[in-house]
């Protein structure tokens, strides 16, 4: 019935005279141009950028970098220090990608630490199942490791992260338990499982070292490379894919999304699963970088990831957020920490400053929202 039928708009269009059609086309072109596609592209893009939280935080980051470059000249603004910084933020960058997606849906994921630690534990467990020479994959040194070992460990990490993520997504999406509680539950439960599996003892392994410290591109540790790829991939997923658009829609107006035919529950499951995968990957990278599991070492990863996303302009009420913003949000605490040490101030000031900057950033976000919806 509806295959040959036309929509109201098509029918309206057919009734127009040639003169009217031309006028309508002109109007349509004007509308598209008004959107900044052809004329004044630079101007409108610039104006749009100026209004965003990400720009605000980027300027702050830039100011920090310039400030420390002046105060710590010769120490802060060196290539090796920036590579060092990039290495320090790489794992948090990966974790923050998942946090950004979750927060854009107006959710939150507190279970990051447990998924990271389970990712670590499963990576090591997976390695221990592979027999190499007299021992297992765990005992292999960085120089003698194989692609198989790297992939086996990766599969273990991703499996652990995905499992935590799927549980989160099921509980939040289908059982409708508030994300705060659902992920608080999996945080505790996941940590418990990790402790049980390890008896609270960490396992050291150098088998994954090439993933972190190896250099496919000379001068750039692979860890940084992985983080860059994950960030780019997340950017495409959030901003250019239909999946990303539905993520925004659910955070913006869940009921509207549902009525538009978006399967909200299934989508939430996927979003939390993605966040879990990112956490699992974070655990993998963590073992690679630190050469050991650290069952007590990730307790604030969830809060750091949320901080990064919020600093970067991701709204905790959902519907708003960018990957670029989150990446900037990851760098601000790191640059502060690094810069303060270099200029000889106690690094604990970083905690104080980041805390207040976070409040400031979210407050300004709310001011903007209020002024926007007042019309």
């Amino acid at each position, binding site marked *: 019935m509806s295959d040959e039928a036309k929509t109201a708009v098509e029918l309206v269009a057919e009734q127009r005279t040639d003169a009217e059609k031309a006028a309508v086309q002109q109007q349509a072109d004007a509308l598209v141009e008004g959107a900044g596609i052809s004329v004044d592209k630079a101007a409108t893009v610039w104006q749009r950028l100026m209004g965003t939280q990400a720009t605000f935080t980027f300027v702050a980051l830039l100011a920090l970098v310039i400030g420390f470059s002046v105060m710590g000249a010769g120490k802060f603004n060196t290539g090796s220090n920036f590579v060092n910084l990039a290495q320090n933020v790489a794992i948090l960058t990966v974790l923050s990608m998942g946090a950004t997606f979750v927060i854009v849906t107006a959710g939150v994921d507190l279970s990051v630490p447990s998924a990271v630690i389970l990712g670590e534990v499963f990576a090591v467990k997976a390695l221990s199942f592979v027999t190499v020479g007299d021992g297992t994959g765990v005992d292999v040194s960085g120089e003698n490791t194989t692609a198989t070992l790297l992939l086996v460990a990766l599969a273990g990490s991703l499996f652990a992260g995905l499992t935590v993520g799927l549980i989160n997504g099921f509980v939040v999406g289908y059982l409708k338990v508030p994300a705060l509680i659902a992920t608080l539950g999996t945080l505790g439960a996941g940590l418990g499982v990790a402790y049980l599996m390890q008896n609270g003892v960490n396992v050291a392994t150098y088998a994954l070292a090439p993933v972190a410290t190896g250099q496919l591109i000379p001068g750039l540790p692979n860890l940084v490379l992985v983080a860059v790829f994950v960030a780019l991939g997340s950017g495409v997923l959030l901003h250019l894919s*239909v999946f990303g658009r539905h993520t925004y829609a659910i955070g913006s*107006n869940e009921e509207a999304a549902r009525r538009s035919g978006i399967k909200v529950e299934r989508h939430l499951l996927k979003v939390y699963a993605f966040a879990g995968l990112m956490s699992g990957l974070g655990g993998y990278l963590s073992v690679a970088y630190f050469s050991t599991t650290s069952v007590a070492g990730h307790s604030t990863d969830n809060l750091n990831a949320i901080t990064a996303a919020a600093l970067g302009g991701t709204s905790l009420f959902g519907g708003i957020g960018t990957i670029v913003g989150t990446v900037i949000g990851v760098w601000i605490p790191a640059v502060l920490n690094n810069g303060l040490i270099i200029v000889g101030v106690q690094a604990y000031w970083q905690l104080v400053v980041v805390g207040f900057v976070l409040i400031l950033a979210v407050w300004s976000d709310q001011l903007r929202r209020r002024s926007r919806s007042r019309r």
Partner: protein
Amino acid sequence: MSQTSAGASPAGTAAGRVPAVAAYGIEKQYGQVRALRSASFEAFPGEVTALVGDNGAGKSTLVKCLAGVIQPDAGRIQVAGRDVVMHNPVQANGFGIETVYQDLALAPDLDAAANVFLGRELRRWKVLHNAKEMRRRTAESFAQLGVGMVQDLRVPVASFSGGQKQSVAIARAAMWAKNVILMDEPTAALGVIQTKKVLELIERVRDSGLAVVFISHNLPQVLEVADRIEVMRLGARVARFSRDDEGLTVDRLIASISGAYRNEPETGSENGQGAAA
């Protein structure tokens, strides 16, 4: 296809016309409350049909049944003379029925084009959305419909005025509807000029040949734009008016809304439906 099945349609098509959408003997019960008691309704192509009634008369429930949002306990729904069953709004969309909800159902953080194509995104390489093409088509449709109030298609609709938002919602419906557009109080929250614009938009959609159904409490407005008026009271249809009916006044409408006047038979059954025709 609609012509072939026209013979099977019930007596409601008295004038030989096939309703774009019709409901016969719809029952809906919420716990102890009977929201719809054998309610019937018809809307014809190329007409604005107003659905009026007091609060709790069952207007919104009936429209939600037609939109696929809720499922009736009993009764038949027909689209273009054919019996249909709709389990969700997407199935209703498949039958050419689009709905403009009272609470708009736009995602405020997305721009107009993203809202218009929400859930039906144009794609590139299967997984990416084609933002540019969606924006172009949105601009064209807005121009066709004369939705001139929207200046920038890239701005989130949260920054739009109430009238602009409503225009986007109606334009979205008009871009996809092939049979019927259902509107639940489309002008309730709007100012005078915005209301005028939205009513013009409704008439333009009507003139395209689709059926427009709208719920309203504003009786002068109903008399202004509606070609036909169906009055509901206590979950059933109590009166029907056509624009040309003599004696169709606000007073007569109020009388039928309050129960003092009816031109529909008292029974709530489908047999009564046949007698009315």
